[in-house]
């Protein structure tokens, strides 16, 4: 009956648009310079208040591209493409689902537009919106009519929606005012309390105390108050008993790292610079090799150099090889490639009936080639010959390493190689080199992934204990929300070209073998406030991390990761041995140290 009434009301009461702001453009991705013109509005509907963005319906509304000097130019795209892109990022969300937003103003004196990125309670983020014709003021003012906003204490660009319930909670808890008590400490500064080793208690407070206080926010009886206190003390004592065994961690979590140094990215290595490291016979000066690799680490490579340089970085060509030596070996390797290729090509349909292991691998390759990077022009279209090349490379790798076979994620590694090499044989042998670095990620027991997750957790613990404790309290300290990052080396997080840049930086092997993990730390570090201020739980964290895809700034992340490396290496003597191993000693040493502290040991208190 009520729902009948509701649908009647719905059909009678028209939607009321409270504010509609034109010239609010959506940006497709971090490295994209295209802005889709559109309209941002707040609409009161019978079912709630909604924030909506939709692309402008005006067919002439200009898609603009911002050039590096801040000027705009029109984008040349077909109307259908424009409509599809616009529809893809359009959204309509209930204001009650808004958790926070990031607001960024252009730097003083610089060109650009203020932008807002809305973050939802479920951890997802909307596409960033740029206010091209107006300020963000009106939108925010109107929003305040429905929800209470406040700027994050920790991050001036983050505005959080204040939960009415938690406000009420803060008030009612202030009645439980025992000075110096864990509960009041928790309320004053939940994260500091968590940091000082009480994460178990804070989660106890979140799980047990908060709901019970919430049930009666107006008045907390004296009895209730006493009961809560007693339970908290018990929990606290319990913690003390357990923490005695975890001595080593005290040092770790208390470690004060030096301030993060300011790091700048350098220009990509140019052809001229690269060739200055080359001797006349085409080999590379062994004395300058480290210098060259540092240059690659600091700036990446000019795109035109990749074809030549990746062969070396991936070990297809040896640094000491002269041009003629390499050409000779390359001819030999080409022969080997064609041999292996003809092996699988010769298998007939009839043979396949009795060769299930082969068929299984082949079908996995086929399924994934069809859906790898198909939005990248290089792989677009139905009969794209590059798909055939990609298929051939992966199938030949199956013959090269039949035991490992094909595992999902490998096509992600192969596609940029083909894009750069444009040649099957070269792509294949570069891929073999890349698999040397990454094949452990694809092994059946997944032990190497687990190891990296543990190492990542240990690193976060040192670099950002506040975040590490929060993740633990949300049962997310297995770090599995970073699985995709680690498995395919951020391939899904960055645009194709940014991925190329990130990979060559990693392939330089500088400044340490586990730089990939420091990149993870840098990204997580940058998301600390969003994760904690929005009180994200396990699912929201995963969703938030997934949604960072294509909205990360590769240069910023690389500089942050490098800065973290310097922080850590400056504190080398104070770091636990296993951390030093991740950072300084090669893979073999790391895998022998898999006795890194297990999760059960990690109950700790660092008073």
């Amino acid at each position, binding site marked *: 009956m009520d729902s009948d009434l509701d649908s009647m009301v719905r059909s009678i009461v028209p939607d009321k648009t409270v504010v509609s702001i034109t010239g609010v453009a959506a940006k497709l991705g971090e490295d994209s310079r295209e802005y889709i013109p559109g309209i941002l509005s707040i609409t009161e509907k019978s079912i709630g208040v909604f924030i909506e963005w939709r692309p402008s319906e005006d067919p002439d509304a200009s898609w603009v591209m911002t050039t590096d000097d801040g000027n705009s130019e029109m984008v040349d795209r077909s109307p259908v493409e424009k409509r599809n892109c616009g529809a893809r990022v359009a959204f309509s969300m209930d204001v009650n689902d808004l958790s926070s937003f990031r607001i960024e103003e252009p730097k003083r004196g610089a060109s650009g537009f203020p932008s807002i990125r809305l973050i939802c309670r479920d951890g997802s983020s909307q596409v960033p919106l740029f206010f091209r014709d107006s300020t963000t003021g009106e939108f925010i003012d109107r929003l305040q009519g429905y929800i209470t906003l406040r700027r994050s204490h920790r991050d001036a660009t983050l505005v959080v929606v204040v939960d009415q319930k938690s406000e009420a909670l803060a008030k009612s808890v202030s009645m439980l005012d025992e000075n110096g008590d864990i509960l009041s400490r928790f309320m004053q500064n939940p994260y500091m309390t968590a940091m000082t080793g009480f994460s178990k208690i804070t989660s106890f407070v979140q799980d047990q105390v908060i709901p019970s206080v919430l049930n009666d926010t107006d008045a907390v009886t004296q009895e209730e108050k006493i009961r809560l206190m007693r339970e908290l003390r018990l929990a606290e004592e319990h913690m003390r008993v357990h923490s005695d065994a975890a001595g080593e961690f005290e040092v770790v979590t208390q470690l004060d790292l030096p301030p993060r140094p300011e790091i700048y990215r350098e220009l990509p290595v140019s052809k001229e610079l690269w060739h200055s490291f080359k001797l006349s016979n085409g080999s590379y000066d062994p004395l300058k090799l480290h210098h060259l690799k540092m240059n690659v680490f600091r700036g990446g490579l000019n795109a035109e150099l990749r074809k030549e340089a990746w062969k070396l970085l991936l070990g297809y060509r040896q640094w000491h090889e002269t041009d003629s030596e390499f050409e000779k070996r390359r001819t030999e390797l080409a022969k080997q490639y064609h041999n292996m290729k003809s092996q699988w090509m010769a298998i007939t349909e009839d043979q396949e009936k009795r060769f299930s292991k082969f068929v299984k691998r082949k079908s996995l390759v086929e399924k994934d080639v069809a859906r790898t990077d198909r939005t990248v022009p290089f792989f677009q279209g139905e009969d794209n010959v590059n798909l055939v090349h990609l298929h051939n490379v992966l199938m030949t790798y199956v013959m090269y390493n039949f035991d490992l076979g094909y595992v999902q994620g490998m096509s992600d590694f192969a596609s940029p190689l083909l894009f750069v090499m444009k040649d099957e044989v070269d792509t294949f042998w570069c891929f073999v080199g890349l698999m040397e670095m990454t094949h452990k990620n694809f092994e059946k027991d997944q032990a190497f992934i687990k190891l990296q997750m543990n190492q990542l957790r240990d690193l976060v613990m040192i670099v950002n204990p506040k975040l590490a404790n929060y993740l633990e309290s949300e049962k997310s300290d297995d770090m599995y929300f970073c699985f995709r990052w680690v498995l395919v080396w951020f391939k899904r997080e960055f645009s194709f070209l940014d991925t190329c840049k990130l990979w060559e930086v990693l392939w330089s092997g500088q400044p340490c073998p586990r730089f990939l993990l420091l990149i993870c730390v840098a990204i997580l570090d940058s998301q600390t406030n969003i994760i904690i201020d929005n009180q994200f739980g396990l699912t929201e964290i995963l*969703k938030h991390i997934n949604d960072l895809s294509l909205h990360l700034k590769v240069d910023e992340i690389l500089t942050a990761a490098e800065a973290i490396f310097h922080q850590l290496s400056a504190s080398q003597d104070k770091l636990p041995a296993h951390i030093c191993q991740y950072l300084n000693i090669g893979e073999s040493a790391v895998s022998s140290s898999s006795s890194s502290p297990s999760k059960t040991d990690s109950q700790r208190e660092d008073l």
Partner: protein
Amino acid sequence: MAARNAGGAARPGGPNRTCQFKLVLLGESAVGKSSLVLRFVKGQFHEYQESTIGAAFLTQTVCLDDATIKFEIWDTAGQERYHSLAPMYYRGAQAAIVVYDITNQESFQKAKNWVKELQRQASPNIVMALAGNKADVANKRTVEYEEANAYAEDNALLFMETSAKTSMNVNDIFMAIAKKLPIGPAQGEGPTGTVDMNQPQQQQKGSCCK
């Protein structure tokens, strides 16, 4: 069509209760798990939907007569190699859709394995549905409707053939699941409704009627 609900809002102060349920999608790689979710949540279809690495998480709300059901959907990677991750995602799930591709007999066998695993390992009251996807290419069918239907009946599964491409039966299968889910007691009985029983307490955000 009733399944689409703009933004998934519950009416503020309305008589309706909102129940949250965790749903997991399982099945062989490339059978269309992500495509089913994308169709259900965003009404979109991408011909070359990229493979899922790890897991993706999405939410969508549907309205029943007496309750609003919010699905927390875990979309998992299908390849055998990543099987060991699956328990992490189906742990505590109140519903599961096991997907196969009607043009691929092997994927149907895999689906049966998933059903067996869920019967053994998942919450005992889990609501399970079997989806025979890619019904739009029925001319290449290798799994007969009757065969799958009989299997589903034997195992008390909801069953539909679906097409993420044409959207056939996509909303319907989620709606059918929603209707089978235990909707907690009426308001006033506190947060520990029936739905909550199998859930560890830390999942409070995730699994109860409010």
